């Protein structure tokens, strides 16, 4: 799988791009499935695509995480036909706040924080971002904040589940030789190659 005739730095860069593309595709698929699943509570989503954002964050760093999240939101909403709709605005604001919180926490607390912690913060950011934009732009009625406790509880649980899933995925991926040159950023010193 590894070619000795190619410049290793370039190889790693290409690998990173290919894997990010795969992560984005998976994230879009998960997002679409979640959106299409019938549910009695339409706004309460697990946010499984966040698992891929977390994986990108821990393998390749904050820029990769932003790439995965923003691409997933754009492509996902394009696919589902919700691009530029109010739902898209909510998704975007939630995603942006979530990724902001995740990347800052990651950069600030790097060796101590794990995927579950970052995921929980991401879930918090997602839900808060959505409620904030919903309040500011769509429903100007203050009783919207009555939903906050339920959203927070749900986001805590889904944050933990996503974090554990991301941790399992990272553990699994790092065993594969394609990722042999980078160790998981955060737990150990990294040989990460930046472009």
């Amino acid at each position: 799988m590894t070619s000795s005739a190619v410049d290793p730095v370039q190889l790693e860069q290409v690998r990173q791009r290919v894997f990010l593309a795969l992560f984005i595709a998976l994230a879009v698929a998960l997002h679409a499935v979640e959106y299409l699943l019938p549910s009695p509570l339409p706004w309460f989503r697990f946010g499984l695509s966040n698992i891929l954002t977390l994986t990108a964050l821990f393998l390749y760093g904050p820029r990769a995480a932003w790439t995965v999240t923003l691409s997933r939101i754009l492509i996902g909403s394009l696919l589902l036909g919700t691009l530029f709709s109010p739902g898209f605005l909510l998704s975007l604001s939630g995603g942006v706040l979530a990724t902001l919180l995740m990347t800052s926490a990651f950069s600030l607390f790097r060796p101590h924080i794990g995927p579950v912690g970052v995921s929980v913060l991401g879930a918090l950011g997602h839900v808060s971002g959505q409620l904030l934009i919903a309040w500011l732009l769509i429903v100007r009625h203050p009783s919207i904040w009555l939903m906050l406790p339920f959203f927070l509880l749900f986001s805590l649980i889904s944050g933990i589940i996503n974090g554990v899933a991301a941790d399992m995925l990272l553990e699994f991926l790092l065993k594969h030789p394609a990722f042999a040159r980078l160790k998981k950023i955060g737990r150990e010193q990294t040989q990460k190659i930046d472009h």
Partner: protein
Amino acid sequence: MALGSALRRLTLFDRYLVVIFALLVVVSFLFPFSKQPGARVVVDADHRTVYTAPLNENRTFEVSGPLGDTRLTIENGAVRVLSSPCPQKICIGMGEAHQAGDLLACVPNRIVIRVEGQAEGESYDLLSR
């Protein structure tokens, strides 16, 4: 158990974060946000509004439903049910309604008592897209 191995994936920092978040959740449930003071009482019989009154004037009145008359009173900025012909008297047990959004109901007599705040009537209550 799977739960134990899942929990081992949380670092010490993660555990603190989860605990803090859980506390935040509990606090958010207990903190009564955005409850505005009520301004008027609206009584619906059989889903039609039959009576409205301001919450700040003391008053006793009756509203009729299929089982009979339900007596209500507005006192000290709160509305409650005094008597009702229903078999279980749950509406009386519901106590007082005084904040915007609070609800009392006598289901057998098909009476719903709502407290509305100042701003309501102007903002839309449904958005469809």
